[in-house]
């Protein structure tokens, strides 16, 4: 019979979570991530370390992408993982994939950072906002590696007009209100609102259609 031997793997994981971390040869499956989350509910710190190891490069990438500042992104990632630990019990595998659930937490925290009083946003950042937008999606060669939900979304985004796509992408990554979007894009408020409304309607129909297939 094996005696408990939990310390070894925990420290191995902990030492791996440094700057030398390499990308997983086999990214963890949805089921594996969901299992780790359910172990976090039982306060399994080893599982939490494994979850961090598996998901933090992706999630930090999202935080960097949205905040556009590494120091902010680090704060966002910290706060997000604290939340993930405390709320792991409310994750429901019937409703969403683990990565989607965690990404939504990170994105919401990141947007909260951006929504702090606007004085902290410098004019360079304002300018960087627009220049960063052109080609958001992965190239066609990357599509195969994407999760099914991301592939569906990507495919459906292709059905939108350029204006719809651009306004939705800007809003998604920067949490801009309709008014701020209109200002950023230099278009009338009503026009931007219509782009977004029609774009979202179209996305919904397209994604839900693909999922039913």
């Amino acid at each position: 019979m094996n005696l408990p031997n939990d310390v070894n793997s925990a420290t191995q994981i902990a030492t791996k979570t440094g700057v030398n971390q390499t990308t997983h040869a086999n990214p963890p499956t949805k089921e594996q991530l969901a299992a780790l989350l359910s172990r976090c509910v039982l306060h399994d710190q080893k599982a939490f370390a494994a979850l961090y190891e598996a998901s933090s490069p992706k999630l930090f990438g999202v935080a960097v992408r949205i905040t556009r500042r590494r120091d902010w992104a680090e704060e966002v990632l910290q706060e997000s993982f604290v939340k993930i630990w405390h709320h792991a019990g409310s994750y429901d595998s019937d409703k969403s994939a683990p990565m989607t659930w965690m990404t939504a937490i990170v994105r919401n925290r990141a947007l909260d950072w951006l929504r702090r009083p606007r004085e902290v946003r410098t004019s360079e950042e304002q300018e960087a906002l627009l220049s960063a937008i052109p080609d958001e999606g992965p190239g066609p060669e990357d599509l195969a590696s994407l999760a099914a939900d991301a592939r569906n979304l990507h495919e459906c985004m292709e059905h939108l007009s350029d204006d719809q796509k651009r306004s939705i992408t800007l809003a998604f990554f920067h949490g801009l209100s309709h008014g701020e979007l209109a200002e950023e894009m230099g278009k009338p408020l009503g026009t931007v609102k219509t782009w977004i409304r029609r774009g979202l309607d179209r996305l919904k129909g397209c994604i839900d259609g693909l999922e039913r297939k």
Partner: protein
Amino acid sequence: MKHINPEIGDQLAADYVLGTMPTRTRQRFEAILKTNPQLRKVVAAWEARLTPMASSAPEVVPPRHVWNTIQKKLFGKHSQEPEMQQTWWSSLGFWRAATGFTTIMLVVSGLLVLTPAAEDPAAIPTIDPATDSMMVVIMEDMQTQSPAMTVSWESGATNLDNRVLRLRVIGHAEMAPDTAWELWMVPHDDSAPVSLGLITTHELQVLRVPQALAQPLDEAWGLGMSVEPKGGSPSGKPTGPMLYRGKCIMA
């Protein structure tokens, strides 16, 4: 606001998830969300549709100090330390040092004498501590970090189809109304916890182990006990919060 027109609710949810809602509207919307499960579902659906947009962001490995800060915030320690503080009753050395017989009797004596009325004591295999090997889990209260419950069973190849866990709740635990206590086996690998069933607050209890779980249980890391909705976890996975936890110790 009791009822929201589904079409308007859907548009609001989309704006909320996309992030285009002005701050004040968003705060009002969040207040409504708290009391409106139907609207929460609509929001979840929009999150599932739009969140994958984030997958276009390239991966960036976070610096090591981020992990250290998370560890410190949550557990008040640095990453290299063992995951669980060793207390005298969970340290292997203690169990090895103590002579098997007296120690085991100390932990399970009450269980051998008394069993709940629901179980026929004669039907429960008796334990001969001198010859059989035992697994013991001293479950700690996560808040007070003091022993709250012991679970023990006769381990090994015998009695696989007739295995029982003997539980002893220490002190006078109380269960909140409309909740249930669910006992979980935590496997040694990273797989999900497996439910062993619901338990009560009675001091002495016996829980039958499904045959398929008898052997995995001997190899488990430990046990956990979580508070679940009445009737047990609806998802088959713990939803928490977690009350007690302990490691398996071979005695």
